[in-house]
C-alpha cells in the first residue's frame, strides 16, 4: 500500500468517526429540544411546581440553579485564580509542586457522585451545614476548583515571555507585572474556561443530591432578607436545582404532566448550557480581538 492510499484511508476513517460523533450529539440535542421546547413558556419558567396537579413550573429550581452557580463562582474564582497564579508564577519547580499538580488533576476527575457523598459526610454532617445551597456550592467547588486552577495556570503560561520581561525590566514587581500585564493578556483564556466551568456546574446533579438537597422550602419571592428561612436569597436553606428536579420528577413525579415537565426542564437546561458555551467562545474571541486589535 502506498503512503498516499494509507493517508487517504486514514483521513476517511477519521472523518467518518468525527461525522458519527457529531451526528450522535446533534441527534441527542435535537431530541431533547424537540421533546421539550414546546412545553417552555413564561408561566413554566416562573411558577412553582405542583405535586399532584397539572401545570406546575420550574421557577424556584431555575432560581436555585442560578443562585447556586453564583455562590459557587464566588468561592471558586478567587481561590482558583490565587492558586493558579501561585502554581504558574511562584511555585518552585520541584517534586512538591508537581505533586500538587497531580492531586489537582486527580481531584478534577473524581466522579461527581463521590464528591456528593463526601459532601454529605463532611460538609453536611461533620461541619453541620445541613442540606443547603452553601453545602452544594462547597461540593461543586471541589471539582470546579481544579479546573479553575488549571485554566489560570494555562492562561498565564501562555503569556509571551517578552511581555513579562518588558514589565519586569521597567522595575515593576512580580505582583504588579502579573496583575497589570499578564492577567489582562491571559484574560480571554481564563474567562472562556471559567464560563465553560460554569456550564458544568449548572448541569450538575449527582454532587448536589446529598448536599444542596432534593427539596426547597416554600420560597417567598417577596422576602429578600437573606437570613429568613423562606427567603430565596438565604444561602443556608436547602435547594433543589433544575438538574436535580429533572432527576426527581423522572423517578418519582406524581403530577400527570410529569413527563412533559421533565422534557421542558431538560430543554431549558440544555439551552442554558449551550448559551454558556457560545457565550464563552464569543467572549473569548471578542476579547482576543480587542487585545490584539489592529485598528
Amino acid at each position, binding site marked *: 500500500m502506498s503512503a498516499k492510499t494509507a493517508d487517504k484511508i486514514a483521513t476517511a476513517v477519521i472523518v467518518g468517526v468525527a461525522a458519527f460523533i457529531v451526528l450522535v450529539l446533534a441527534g441527542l440535542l435535537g431530541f431533547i429540544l424537540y421533546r421539550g421546547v414546546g412545553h417552555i413558556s413564561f408561566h413554566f419558567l416562573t411558577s412553582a411546581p405542583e405535586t399532584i396537579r397539572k401545570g406546575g413550573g420550574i421557577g424556584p429550581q431555575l432560581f436555585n440553579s442560578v443562585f447556586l452557580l453564583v455562590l459557587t463562582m464566588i468561592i471558586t474564582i478567587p481561590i482558583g485564580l490565587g492558586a493558579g497564579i501561585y502554581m504558574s508564577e511562584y511555585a518552585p*519547580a520541584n517534586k512538591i509542586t508537581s505533586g500538587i499538580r497531580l492531586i489537582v488533576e486527580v481531584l478534577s476527575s473524581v466522579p461527581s457522585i463521590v464528591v456528593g457523598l463526601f459532601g454529605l459526610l463532611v460538609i453536611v454532617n461533620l461541619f453541620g451545614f445541613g442540606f443547603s445551597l452553601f453545602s452544594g456550592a462547597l461540593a461543586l467547588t471541589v471539582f470546579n476548583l481544579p479546573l479553575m486552577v488549571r485554566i489560570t495556570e494555562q492562561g498565564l503560561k501562555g503569556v*509571551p515571555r*517578552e*511581555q513579562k*520581561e*518588558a*514589565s*519586569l*525590566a*521597567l*522595575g*515593576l*514587581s512580580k505582583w*504588579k507585572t502579573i496583575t*497589570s*500585564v499578564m492577567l*489582562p*493578556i491571559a484574560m480571554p483564556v481564563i474567562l472562556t474556561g471559567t464560563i465553560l466551568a460554569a456550564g458544568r456546574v449548572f448541569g450538575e446533579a449527582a454532587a448536589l443530591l446529598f448536599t444542596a438537597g432534593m427539596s426547597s422550602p416554600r420560597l417567598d419571592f417577596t422576602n429578600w432578607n437573606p437570613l429568613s428561612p423562606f427567603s430565596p436569597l438565604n444561602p443556608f436553606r436547602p435547594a433543589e436545582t433544575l438538574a436535580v428536579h429533572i432527576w426527581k420528577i423522572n423517578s418519582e413525579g406524581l403530577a400527570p404532566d410529569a413527563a412533559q415537565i421533565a422534557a421542558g426542564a431538560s430543554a431549558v437546561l440544555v439551552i442554558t448550557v449551550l448559551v454558556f458555551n457560545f457565550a464563552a467562545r464569543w467572549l473569548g474571541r471578542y476579547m482576543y480581538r480587542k*487585545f*490584539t*486589535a*489592529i*485598528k
Partner: protein
Amino acid sequence: MNSLIEINDLDLFYGDFHALKHVNLEIPEKAITAFIGPSGCGKSTLLRTFNRMNDMIAGTRIEGKVEIAGTDIYSKEVDVETLRKRVGMVFQQPNPFPKSIYDNVAYGPRLHGISDRKKLDEIVETSLRSAALWNEVKDHLKRSAYSISGGQQQRLCIARALAVEPDILLMDEATSALDPISTLKIEELAQELKDRYTIVMVTHNMHQAARVSQQTVFFLNGEVVEYSETEQLFSNPTDQRTEDYISGRFG
C-alpha cells in the same frame, strides 16, 4: 571619559555551564558601548547582568562584582526594582503591551505611583519625543500599539523604557528584526540619546557597531577578548582573534 559600570572578575554559571569567564570591563558614561562577537559568546548574558534579568533563570550563579556608579548591584542592600528603574532595556523583538500607545508609555510611571493626569501626559510626550516618535503618533495616542509598524513599535519600546527615567539603556540586538530604514532611525536615535544616557548595545552587525558606538567590546566563548575605542578596535586590533573576527574570517 568616566566609567559608569565597572565589572570586576565576573563569572557567571548557568548550572554547570560557565557562560562568562573572568570578565573585566569598564563602560563609559554617556556614550555608546557596543558588544560584538559570534552567537552564543555571552553578550546577552553580560547585558542582562546589568539589570539582573538573569536572576529569574533558576540555577544561575554569579561570582565577582558588577558596580554601577560605585554600588555593587549584586549586594544584599540593592533593591532589584530600583535598579531596573535606573537600567532600562530594549529587546530584540519589539514587544509593546497589548494596550494603547499612550498606555504603553504611561505604564511604568503609572505603576510606580504617578497618577496625576497632567504629569502623565507630560511624561508620555517627552518620552515619545525623546524616542523620535511623537510626530508620527501624536494624533492617535489612543490606538493600539500594534497598529504601528515594527520600527515604530521598537521606538515605542524605547519611549516606554525612557518614561521611568533610567540612566542606562540596554539594547539587545534592538534592530535585528527591523528593516534598513527603521534600523537607521534607531541608530540616529541612539546617537541623540547618548548625550543623556549611557547606552550598551549588543549587535551582530559590525558596521552598526562601527557607525554608532564609541567603545566596542569583542567577546569570544564567554571571555572579553578585547575592548577599546571603536575606531581603534576596528582599525588596529591588538588581538589576532579580534582581527580574524572583524575581517570576517569566522563567526
